[in-house]
């Protein structure tokens, strides 16, 4: 099994979720994160204090999938999340050894 973790722009969440549902992935976990990268931030001014804000709001999406689906999942996310603008984000894939569905105790791909 693999874990696909994607950092995307927040307003792309619904599109990504739809894309994943479209290819049969029905579970995922989302986290609000802040990203730092090439995309430039902005300056905030509060009276005399100016702050260069370089961390931008992003969403992290995590999906556990069977190894054989990884490619199409990455594909789906990549195309749904893409705007072509800087800051679109990244997708990382790594292996997982085990998965358990707490409710039933099912394991591995049955658990996803």
């Amino acid at each position: 099994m693999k874990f696909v973790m994607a950092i995307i722009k927040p307003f792309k969440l619904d599109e990504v979720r739809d894309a994943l549902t479209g290819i049969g992935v029905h579970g995922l976990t989302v986290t609000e994160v802040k990203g730092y990268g090439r995309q430039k931030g902005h300056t905030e001014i509060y009276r005399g204090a100016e702050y260069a804000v370089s961390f931008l709001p992003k969403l992290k999406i995590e999906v556990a999938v069977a190894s054989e689906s990884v490619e199409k999942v990455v594909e789906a996310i990549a195309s749904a999340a893409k705007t072509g603008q800087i800051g679109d984000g990244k997708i990382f894939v790594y292996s997982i050894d085990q998965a358990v569905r707490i409710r039933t105790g099912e394991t591995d791909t049955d658990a996803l």
Partner: protein
Amino acid sequence: MKLSSVLRWGAPVLAVGLLAAAGAYAQEAAAPAADAAAAAAPAAPTPNKGDTTWMLVSTVLVLLMTVPGLALFYGGLVRTKNMLSVLMQVMAIACLVMIIWAVYGYSLAFSDGGGLNSFVGGFSKAFLAGVTTSTTVESFSRGVVIPELVFVCFQMTFAAITPALIVGAFAERIKFSALLLFTVLWVTFIYFPMAHMVWWWPGPEFASTNPAEATVAGAGLIWSFGAIDFAGGTVVHINAGITALVGALVLGKRVGYGKDLMAPHSLTMTLIGAGLLWVGWFGFNAGSNLESNGYAALAMINTFLATAAAALAWMFVEWMAKGHPSMLGLASGAIAGLVAVTPAAGFAGPMGSIVLGIIAGVICFVACTSIKNALGYDDSLDVFGVHCVGGVIGAILTGVLVNPDLGGAGVVDYTLDNGAGTAGAYSLATQVIAQCKGVLVTLVWSGVGSFILYKIVDVIVGLRVTEEKEREGLDITEHGERAYNM
């Protein structure tokens, strides 16, 4: 010390009676109303300090409605990223209009307009010329006056909140510079004339000592229809509400409308705002009596009951229609009730106000849910559905509920009993027709006028921010700050 005759609603049944029998009057057109009234005043009355205090307090209450009341009510309904923009829009508009009011607004609204007097005042009081700590204006009782400066302040808060109401329609997408420019134009060409048309009349002293025709001749257009509006249902709510709808249509929908989650970022703020609006509205409605007496109390109880009734009505109808009674529904209903009772506050009876509230709550619910969704415009915060629809309901039903037979207060006919405040005859049809005429003029003047102003502003500075800015939120892109850094 000269007695100003600048005053407001109060005796339009007189006008109505007059219009019904206009031919009966033989006298020539009256001298310009204000002068005549001033001349007619034998010994200048002095303000009662209880009245003065009431008006000082009422003025403060209307400011409370605006900042922080309205700002929070609206602010809570937008997304986090636009919170500050809304707070700022409301407050900046209020500040801007206050300055304009002192410079020429008061004069355009509340001075004699000469040849244009049916539509707008003149510049004789520009820069508050002649307004001092000792000048006064009449209330609606003959011989009762308040310091003119208090009246200037009180009316200033009305002028300040009205354009701020419109903000809800194009929140989350308007350019700040466009908003400021629009506000300047709008108060100048729409609000001040509307206030003059509805609220300018020669006053009780003149009306008590002159034939009704003379009084009507010296009044603003809508006043002269015989339409009654206790605290500004037309000038404030219908006026702002229709401008809002036009704005929503001209600016177009928000990016992502109907697709993205646009849930209110903090209904807590909305509730605080709703509460402060209610609290402040007593200054608005009961303060519009300009005098601290039983009629102020009547306006107060009506403002309690119509609001409570509308809040509950919206809540129950939503409960039935959607399965849950929501806090936003309860609060929206309260505002709908407040809007609807505004023109009726000192005219309806308490039981009539409950009925009015129920009707307003139900109809505004339908307007903000089914009708809005059916028509598909994006009036972000339902300014049209609450203020225009609620305002029209209130304006028309005021014509019904003022009927003493329904527990209403009737309308004073100053030509009776030497101006003692006796109610004149009431005719349902006449009064309702007068009300409808007032509503129609308002819808047309404000609808057409604001459409033109939007277009002008669009040409000069552009109305909308870019899509990218809209997506990032106005707080950062327009104002360089964020509402929360938790």
